[in-house]
């Protein structure tokens, strides 16, 4: 079960997998995630679903090798199988009908952002996508994003591609230029924090998709809890998307350090 049928190396540390999981492929929507266990002694790792092909019965996962288990996952090859894949978990993204949406993706966060970009576009939104990364080779899925975006802005820290600067520089230019109805941001917690601070200044509603630590992913453990508007919420069942202006990012960043 859960066999890897395709693998594509996006960059040294970022891998795209296509995995057989027919029930999840049929029922997932933009914003959903899965829990993956690589082998029977493995850890339960939450990964956002980047894409799905219900006909083939597959889902697409984009994994960045950052820890013990994600490195082990990224070393797996087509033909091998994950021990377990469970989902789709979390609440699906609320898709707007119309208006201008800016989708800000940082690094591997672009993968879970892609289905949201597509769904927003399909629903009739004007979609401006901002892809940001440290350097050119870490910009992923640009072509797919372009297909569903009215405008794509690329930002790199070192200026090796697109405009030199942070995602917030690109976003602020858009906010100064035109009216934006909503911002969606997925990426490193620090990036989402600064996107949120910026859009608060411009009073633009903003949704952040949080990537906290989880064990079961079904509400049972509470490892993923975050303070949203002063209340404890569980990313796995109440999220993963929240009103970014109400998320306590500093607390979340601290909890990610464990």
């Amino acid at each position: 079960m859960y066999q890897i049928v395709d693998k594509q190396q996006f960059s040294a540390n970022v891998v795209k997998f296509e995995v057989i999981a027919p029930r999840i492929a049929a029922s997932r929507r933009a914003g959903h995630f899965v829990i993956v266990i690589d082998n029977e002694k493995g850890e339960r790792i939450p990964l956002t679903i980047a894409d799905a092909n219900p006909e083939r019965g597959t889902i697409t996962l984009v994994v960045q090798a950052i820890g013990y288990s994600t490195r082990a996952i990224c070393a797996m090859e087509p033909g091998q199988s994950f021990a377990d894949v469970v989902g789709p978990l979390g609440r699906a993204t609320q898709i707007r009908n119309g208006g201008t949406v800016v989708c800000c993706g940082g690094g591997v966060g672009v993968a879970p952002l892609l289905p949201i970009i597509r769904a927003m576009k399909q629903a009739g939104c004007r979609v401006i996508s901002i892809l940001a990364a440290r350097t050119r080779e870490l910009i992923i899925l640009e072509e797919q994003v372009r297909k569903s975006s009215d405008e794509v802005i690329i930002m790199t820290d070192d200026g090796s591609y697109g405009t030199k600067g942070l995602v917030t520089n690109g976003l602020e230019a858009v906010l100064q230029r035109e009216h934006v109805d909503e911002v969606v941001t997925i990426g490193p917690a620090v990036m989402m924090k600064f996107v949120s601070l910026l859009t608060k200044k411009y009073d633009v509603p903003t949704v952040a998709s949080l990537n906290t630590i989880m064990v079961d992913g079904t509400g049972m453990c509470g490892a993923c809890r975050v303070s949203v508007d002063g209340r404890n919420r569980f990313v796995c069942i109440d999220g993963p998307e929240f009103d970014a202006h109400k998320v306590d990012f500093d607390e979340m960043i601290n909890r990610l350090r464990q």
Partner: protein
Amino acid sequence: MNPTNLTPKERTAIPRVEMPELDAEFRVSSLTLEVNQGLSREQAVMEASRCLNCPNPQCVTGCPVSINIPGFIKQIEQQNFNEALSVLRRTSALPAVCGRVCPQEKQCESKCIYNRMSKQPVAIGYLERFAADNGSLPQTERPQSNGVKIAVAGSGPAGLSFAGAMAALGYEVTVFEALHAVGGVLIYGIPEFRLPNSVVEKEIVALKAMGVVFETDTIVGKTLSYDQLLEMGFRGIFVASGAGLPRFMNIPGENLVNIMSSNEYLTRINLMHAGTPGYATPVPQPETVAVIGGGNTAMDSCRTARRMGAKRVMVIYRRSEAEMPARVEEVKHARQEGVEFLTLHNPVEYLADERGRVRAMRLQRMELGEPDADGRRSPRPVQGDIVEIPVDLVIVSVGVSPNPIIPAAISGLEVTSRGTIATDSETLQSSIPMLYAGGDIVRGGATVILAMGDGRRAAAAMHNNLQSNLK
């Protein structure tokens, strides 16, 4: 001595058996060694002979599923261990589990006639476990299938007992489990040293032999919708998804690093084998651990922490020991294992070190006031009396709420204000006629035996309903 010839006077003169248990200092070196070793045959027969076989046995009224207690005990006395198990099996799907985890001192044993003689009650729990471990029943014939498909959401005690009862009636039962392992709280929650996984595994093997199919990694309401289950041909659904959602106290600092729910702590260790070489899941293993709460899960957590190498383990409980909801035996075992009890203390704040990890807790001293609605004396703070104690890991074990996934996923399913599924109290039928529910998703945090009883009751009611519909 032939115990069957004893006079009542001779019977009541026999002292209650003591459960052989591993030495406390030795057992805290192992996560898996079962503390209670079980009675020997001689001990069991002798203890069984204490039972006076009362004409109007009150113990049965103390049992949530009305097990014929004198019936199985007298079979033990006659050394008919298989027959003893057979009596248990008539009303209980999981006697090996209940014999180990039921709060007998609050149920059957609290009603034993010996209490009125100011003597210790018959050790009904120990005897139940003995019969389950030592009796064996002929392999149940796989019943002729009636072709009717039934789905179960959740493989904990309620789901397993429901599945067993329906399979015995010939239904084709599929149990969907969200986790990657079957058994629910029996596997992820209750530790090996209190309930060996092999005991649960035996039950699951028996259910599989009866034709029950288990599908792990499948969340009803997420992986499969209610409508999909109907399309797949299921004619009845039993929801036993449990009380998965841990509660927190919402006090300052509770979201610091190294503060977690008991569910998280126990799941990491029991289900994911954190701390066992070769397994990838991490868990903090510091020297000083505090467990907040006084229930069985709190006891499981503090005793697990000792086994994970913690030198100082404290249980923080806001009432006194008399009000503690945990089984008496668990508290005793925890004490033997060196756990400190700070009763009449309640955390009010956690303090962080420079890296955002918990370094200390501030505890409010409490005193007991008037009895509250449950009859338990409610605690109130002693003004100005706050102590600060250093701690490296805090495990919050202050209760759970119903898992919201299924209630939220099925439209038209009536839910109570507490988030539990509303059911008929007799039949456990929900507002959707083909959907029944039981265990903690209905009760909101109860016991294994009540969950198991629900499974059986729902099976009988669903069977009745399906039979009348099929006619």
